[in-house]
Each structure stands twice: as C-alpha cells, then as structure tokens.
C-alpha cells in the first residue's frame, strides 16, 4: 500500500497540545509535545525513505529506518564525513541534520529521563525545529533531495562502491 503522510498530523498534534497562553503547561504536556515534534520529523524521514519504492511496498518498508542509525548518519552528513556526499553539505541540509539530532536528543530526554526538567520554551523550540525540517524537506530543493538520499543511504550502512 502507498504510505500516507503522517508527519503533518504529528506536527499539528505537537502544536495543538501546547497552550498558546503564557501559563506554564503541565510537565507531561511539554514532554508529549516534544515527543510529537520529533516523531513528525521521524515520520518525514520514513516517508522520504518509502517514496524510493513502489507503492505496493511502501507501507511495509516504512518502518525500516533506525533512529540511532539516522542520527549517526545525520552527524556524518553534517560533518562532511559521509562518502555518499559529492560536495560540501549545503546550509539547508546542515540545518536539517542539526535539527534532527537535537530533536532526537530532546525526545529521548522527554520520554525517558524523568530527572530532566523541561520548560515551555523547550517544547516551542522542538516545534520550531520540526516545522523548519519539514518545510525544508517539502521544498524539494535539488541539494536537499540529494542530501536526504545520502542521509538515507548512510543510515542503512550501504557503502559507496569504488569506481
């Protein structure tokens, strides 16, 4: 089955549960919003991956990416250490990789580390990073599309063939 885009729904949810007034939201609301912001970006990555395959295979393959491996790949792309990159990482791609890494760290803390204290601006930051990542992805800019391909190839551990 062709894969439905889930990332817009996660993004809307992350924003919806965060109150717009200046009051301090409950800790659980902040944590859930951060988590949803990360998952918006995560499902965007999974969507990008699934689009490389025929519609019949997309849903089955959409869960193939691994969180840790994509984070490691993002670090390599950002640091120009990926063999797949044919030139320097462009500014937009660099920002996407940085946003992904930061969001995954925030989500990990939000979901698993009960000693970390979050404030509302942390959730606002997570939401802004997720929006920026997805907006950049959806521009379909040539450099970004190529960079996302490199990120996905790097994340599955495929070695670049020597000529």
């Amino acid at each position, binding site marked *: 089955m062709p894969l439905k885009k889930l990332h817009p729904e996660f993004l809307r949810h992350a924003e919806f549960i965060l109150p717009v007034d200046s009051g301090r939201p409950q800790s659980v609301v902040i944590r859930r919003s951060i988590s949803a912001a990360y998952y918006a970006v995560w499902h965007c990555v999974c969507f990008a991956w699934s689009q490389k395959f025929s519609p019949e295979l997309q849903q089955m393959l959409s869960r193939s990416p691994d969180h840790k491996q994509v984070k490691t790949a993002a*670090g390599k792309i950002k640091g120009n250490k990926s063999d797949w990159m044919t030139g320097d990482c462009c500014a937009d791609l660099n920002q996407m990789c940085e946003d992904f890494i930061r969001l995954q760290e925030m989500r990990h803390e939000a979901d698993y580390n009960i000693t970390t*204290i979050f404030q509302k*601006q942390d959730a*606002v930051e997570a939401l802004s990073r997720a929006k920026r990542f997805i907006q950049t992805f959806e521009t379909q800019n040539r450099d970004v599309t190529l960079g996302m391909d490199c990120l996905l190839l790097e994340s599955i551990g495929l070695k670049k063939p020597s000529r």
Partner: protein
Amino acid sequence: MSNPNRSQLIDDISTALSSFNETIRPDGVGVRAFSLEQDDELGLVAKVIYVIDDIARAEDMNFIDRYCGQSGEILKDYVEFVFCRFRSEAEYHSDSSDSPWGLSLIELQHAA
C-alpha cells in the same frame, strides 16, 4: 573528578565559556553551567545552559541558532556536539536546586 584528562577538559571548557560570556553579557544572555556526557553515536557532547534576561527571546529560532551556534563553534575542539538549554534566572534556580539534573551541572565561576 579523578580522571586528570577530564578535569583538564572541564577547566578548558570553563575557561572558553567564561571568555565567551564576556562578549555576550551586554546582550542580556550568558552561559551559566554545562555538563559533559558520552553519547553512543555522537561521542562526547556538552550540554550548555544559557540564562537570559527575557525568556520569551528563547522562542525565536534565530536567537537560539545564534547562541547555540556560537557555543558549538567555541567548543568544537573539545566535544563532538553541543546541546543548549535556555532558562530564565528563576527557572534555572528552580530547575537546578537539589535535583539530579542540577547535580550533574558544572557551574561557571563569575557567571552573570
């Protein structure tokens, strides 16, 4: 801190961030504390805590990018990656006092 290399690293980072504070203090922002953690994928990461005069400024991504980017640049020879948190004075004190999170922080001397 029994590891002398770690102690030296903490000293070096403290010095670098204290010097950085001198340049940004007029902007109403300063690094108050940091922690060091080993990340399985990224390597050594620093978590830098900024205290700012008006916490609403931390809702602006340009503000976050500017200061987080600057601390990342300053610490690039010491750690693989820098994560940032932005707090008001009151939030910093309530977050860090007597909490496990607060105990993991290394406070800068003479921080604003």
